[in-house]
């Protein structure tokens, strides 16, 4: 979000004609002022109530809960940092933590490469059918992660999936895409890329189209090669867009939940279990809400870090414009 630019679009003071005394009769002016004070607060009220009740209070509550032992039907007991101390030695939690990091790293890195490749193929408005291709590549981004997961589970099935069918038909062996502990993670990462690349492609196309065409023309006149043009014009000028994509994709990957619950249920073993799922399980299935809140706090810290980064980057971008 670009808060940095919020000041530069302030209404022009000269346009604020309500301030000019000769235009409005006194009586109506007083009445108008009252309404104009109350109105913005009333307009904001539903949002303030919802943000307060369902984000800000729960966030504070969550922080408090992380220092307690808390089940749905038991009285919360304050236990200080015990949850965090237990968390430090919780192997399952650290397994889900490292799974989340590994998943995020590869998903984000590969999404960026693939989405950039798609964007480069489609941003110039020079070839026929470019818009159609953009729409085609965007289609997976329309689908819910649940339906994406179902589709790929159908495709990657050990016995009856079409990929293994084709492999066997070609004389090879079937591959245990979702039931082998190493391959399951690879499959999840590839499906995540398939599902999301189109969205980031659209973001990157907007970024590429914002680069002034004169720069390319100048480079052409100077006889710069295509790779040289790419590294010295395209990449540097696309930097801020790439950073936005990096941050958005990273945050999305830390929140990943649906795909795994449909495709592998976190298995085999803990091979594809991520933090969010572990939080859900500990909180709602094992009824240890305090301990699960402590896990949420850790997740929250990681996500906040990246969000702050995004604020900073887009703010800097705005001041460059």
């Amino acid at each position, binding site marked *: *979000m*670009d808060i940095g630019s*919020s000041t530069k*679009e302030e*209404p022009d003071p000269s*346009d604020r*004609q*309500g301030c000019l005394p000769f235009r409005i009769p006194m009586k109506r002016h007083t009445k108008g002022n009252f309404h104009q004070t109350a109105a*913005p*607060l*009333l*307009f*904001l009220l*539903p*949002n303030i109530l*919802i*943000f307060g*009740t369902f*984000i*800000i209070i*729960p*966030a504070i*509550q*969550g922080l408090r*809960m992380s220092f307690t032992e808390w089940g749905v039907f038991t009285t919360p007991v304050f236990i200080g940092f015990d949850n965090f101390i237990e968390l430090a030695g919780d192997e399952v939690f650290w397994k889900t933590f490292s799974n989340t990091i590994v998943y995020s790293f590869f998903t984000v890195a590969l999404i960026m490469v693939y989405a950039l490749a798609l964007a480069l*193929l489609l941003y110039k408005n020079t*070839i026929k059918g470019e818009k159609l291709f953009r*729409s085609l*590549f*965007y*289609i*997976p981004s*329309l*689908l*819910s992660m*649940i339906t994406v997961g*179902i*589709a790929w589970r*159908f495709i990657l099935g050990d016995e009856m999936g*079409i990929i293994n*069918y084709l492999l066997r038909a070609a004389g090879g062996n079937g591959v245990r895409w979702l039931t082998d502990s190493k391959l399951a993670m690879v499959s999840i990462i590839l499906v995540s890329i*398939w599902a999301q690349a189109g969205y980031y492609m*659209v*973001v990157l196309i*907007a*970024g590429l189209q*914002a680069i002034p065409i004169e720069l390319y023309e100048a480079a052409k006149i100077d006889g710069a090669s295509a790779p040289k043009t790419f590294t010295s014009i395209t990449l540097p000028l696309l930097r801020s867009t790439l950073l*936005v994509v990096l941050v958005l994709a990273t945050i999305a990957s830390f*929140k990943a*939940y649906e795909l795994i*619950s449909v495709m592998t249920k976190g298995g085999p073993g803990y091979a594809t279990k991520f933090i969010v799922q572990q*939080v*859900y399980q500990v909180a709602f299935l094992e009824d240890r809400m305090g301990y699960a*809140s402590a896990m*949420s706090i850790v*997740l*929250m810290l990681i996500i*906040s870090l990246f*969000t702050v980064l995004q604020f900073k980057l*887009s703010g800097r971008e705005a001041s460059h414009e």
Partner: protein
Amino acid sequence: MNKQPVSKTLHYTVLILLSLITLLPVLWVVLSSFKPQSELFQVPLTFIPQDWTLENYVSSLAAGNFPVYFSNTVFVAVVSTALTVLINLMAGYALAKYIFTGRDIIFTVMIATLMIPLQVIMIPIFLQLKSLGMLNSLWGIIIPPAATPTGVFLARQYLVTLPNSLIEAARIDGAREHTIFFRLILPMSKPIVATIAIFSFMWRWNDYLWPLIVITDNRKQTIQQALANFVGQLQINWSDLLAMTTIAIIPVIIVFLAFQRFFFSGIAAGSVKG
């Protein structure tokens, strides 16, 4: 640059190859949903159904609660979208066109709530909904996520660009503040209303985590929840599942085809500029 026919051919070949990878999985699911159960896993596999049939659709619609899930989802998506558009446009208008103490703080706090995703506060939210008696109610899915930082942001950015003189002129004519909003601002905000509405609808239609937290009652579930449960069963009835999946996909594809330009401009506004 790509004047030579060779590179143009290569360009198209790559694009066509990649679009096959993108589309074939979706197509495979949709086509398979029209195969009779006996043909679904038959060897050799057929890509195009030999015997086109609607029996999977009939059986998944007739058996169980699928029609209920569908109407729940339509209700949630439509009402949520209307509510989201209205309250975010109102908030964006207040932040864009009024001057009052605390305005910038309110805006900053609203945007900063982006840093607290649902995944992180689902436990206290669950308890909050429980204490408000909103568990197992569709309103529990509709109301809490209706106010969105992105919606407020997009609405504010759009409304800031509308000329103040119009609002002043309406005030001079004696229009009340709410009349100005509903009669003047709302009709002038069509593009941003469409953008927020489309993204809200898509998100609500596809959302899984909110329903998962709020709903346990079988008859209150949404489509995504029902699909996830269906896939969690030991013995999956793939024929029915694929038909249900296709039904879940159709509305978002229709919305996309109808409002394509809003998608791309909305993404650009929400991520690059915003």
